């Protein structure tokens, strides 16, 4: 092989960064761009009234005024605060309850019917009740979010702790491990991928909780922005709320997947 041939083959093996990126994300980008284009064309050409659908360009244009007036920031901040507090409380409490249920048969018997029952219940339907009880401020929203997030967290924590691989328990036991050591060396790390999956499920449910609770009555928040825009038939502003929520959901979930890959690398196959 001549030097020239080696150089050529090396060049072939390392395509440019752009090509690598394109081969990895090309189809995703293409599909999103196409979807937006169809949306734009449909909104301009086929939907007669602006009261029914806003085009992507109108939505982008609507962000400017909402941002400059400071309205969007207030809505975003309010919803974010409700989400963070509700989600955080649910995670801490949910993991603790999951441990409790997994560790004692009596606790499991006492709590299991509540957990299974409430997990299956569409608890968002109770949002108006919580607003009645706790007022239109952020506390009622935090309760709704926490209630939606907590059950997958409890169930996954408990499942993970119960599915400790017995062959690994036996292995550390053969070295004389105590119950405590078995828990920290085997049960807990084995449960982590399950716990993380529960926390990831909770993100989507928590975001739904924020919006739905705000729809039923709030002073501010993205759900309130959506509700108020719908009442005034301001479609571009309504879609700004939806888009911000969608982006938040995507960012949170993918951030979580990233974190998961680093914290529990053995959970991936």
């Amino acid at each position, binding site marked *: 092989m001549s030097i020239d041939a080696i150089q050529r083959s090396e060049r072939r093996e390392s395509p440019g960064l752009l090509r690598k990126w394109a081969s990895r994300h090309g189809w995703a980008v293409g599909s999103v761009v196409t979807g937006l284009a169809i949306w734009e064309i449909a909104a301009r050409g086929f939907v007669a009234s602006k009261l029914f659908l806003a085009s992507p360009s109108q939505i982008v244009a609507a962000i400017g005024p909402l941002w400059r007036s400071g309205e969007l920031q207030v809505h975003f901040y309010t919803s974010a605060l409700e989400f963070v507090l509700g989600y955080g409380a649910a995670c801490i409490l949910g993991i603790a309850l999951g441990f409790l249920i997994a560790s004692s048969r009596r606790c499991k018997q006492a709590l299991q019917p509540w957990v299974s029952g409430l997990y299956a219940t569409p608890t968002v339907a109770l949002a108006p009740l919580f607003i009645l009880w706790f007022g239109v401020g952020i506390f009622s929203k935090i309760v709704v979010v926490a209630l939606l997030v907590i059950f997958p967290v409890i169930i996954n924590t408990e499942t993970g702790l119960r599915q400790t691989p017995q*062959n*690994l328990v*036996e*292995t*550390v*036991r*053969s*070295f*004389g*491990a105590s119950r405590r*050591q078995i828990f920290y*060396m*085997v049960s807990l*790390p084995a449960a*982590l991928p399950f716990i993380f999956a529960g926390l990831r499920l909770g993100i989507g449910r928590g975001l739904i909780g924020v919006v739905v609770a705000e729809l039923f009555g709030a002073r501010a928040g993205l759900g309130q922005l959506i509700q108020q825009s719908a009442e005034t038939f301001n479609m571009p502003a309504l879609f700004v709320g939806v888009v911000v929520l969608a982006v938040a959901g995507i960012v949170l979930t993918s951030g979580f997947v990233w974190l998961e890959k680093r914290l*529990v*690398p*053995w959970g991936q196959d």
Partner: protein
Amino acid sequence: MEASVKLTVSGLTKRFGDLEVLRQINTSIGKGEFISIVGPSGCGKTTFLRIVGGLESASAGTVSLDGRVIDGPGRDRGFVFQQDNLLPWRDILSNVGIGSEIAGIRTPEQRALTQHLLELVGLKGFEHYYPRQLSGGMRQRVNLARALAVNPDLLLMDEPFSALDAQTREIMQTELLRIWEEGRKTVLFVTHQIDEAVFLSDRVFVFARRPGRLQEIIGIDLPRPRALAIKRTPEFVALVDRIWKLIEHDVRASVIEEHAL
């Protein structure tokens, strides 16, 4: 035959409910001996090993190691499992070191031993790999190193090579002998494969089934160190043949039973 007795088994019996898995096992094993246990499925050989390991309790009789009766797992024994059972969230180094970690030992000597064992099993440079990044053969080497890392008096091996392909298995047998020659630990090795038992051992314990019992002990007087070529000598073949004839009837019976299930 041997200078000092390491393990004494007297009147060992094990029942699971109505099923008598082991009946009246009596034997003793000398320090530094390599003992293999062969027998058909259901002869209780693995149960025997687990009782010696303290993972199972005896229904009657005792097993004593250096005169002390065994009543649970301990660091004087190292167990090599059939599946490698490595903790997937620990790298190779901390998998090998888990025995000393459980005992709370963090001395430079222990670290040096762990490092030395990784070298001995041919995994130097893989300290910070995770189990899923290694092949089956490499993982079994880690399994062995983990058991040796507690510096046990007695090494208990439960069909450790049965999950490996035939070639890897032969290599692992010679590797095991090489490692064993270095420290000459007392070894109890359970296997299905007669040629593996003959190749490795000083004595082969032949177990029979229904109930599980020690049927016969065959001394293997082949010279050491042994190379794989020894498997083709007439003496070796004759020994394998003799053991096979001892268990043939039982193996046929167990195979028919398994198919009937």
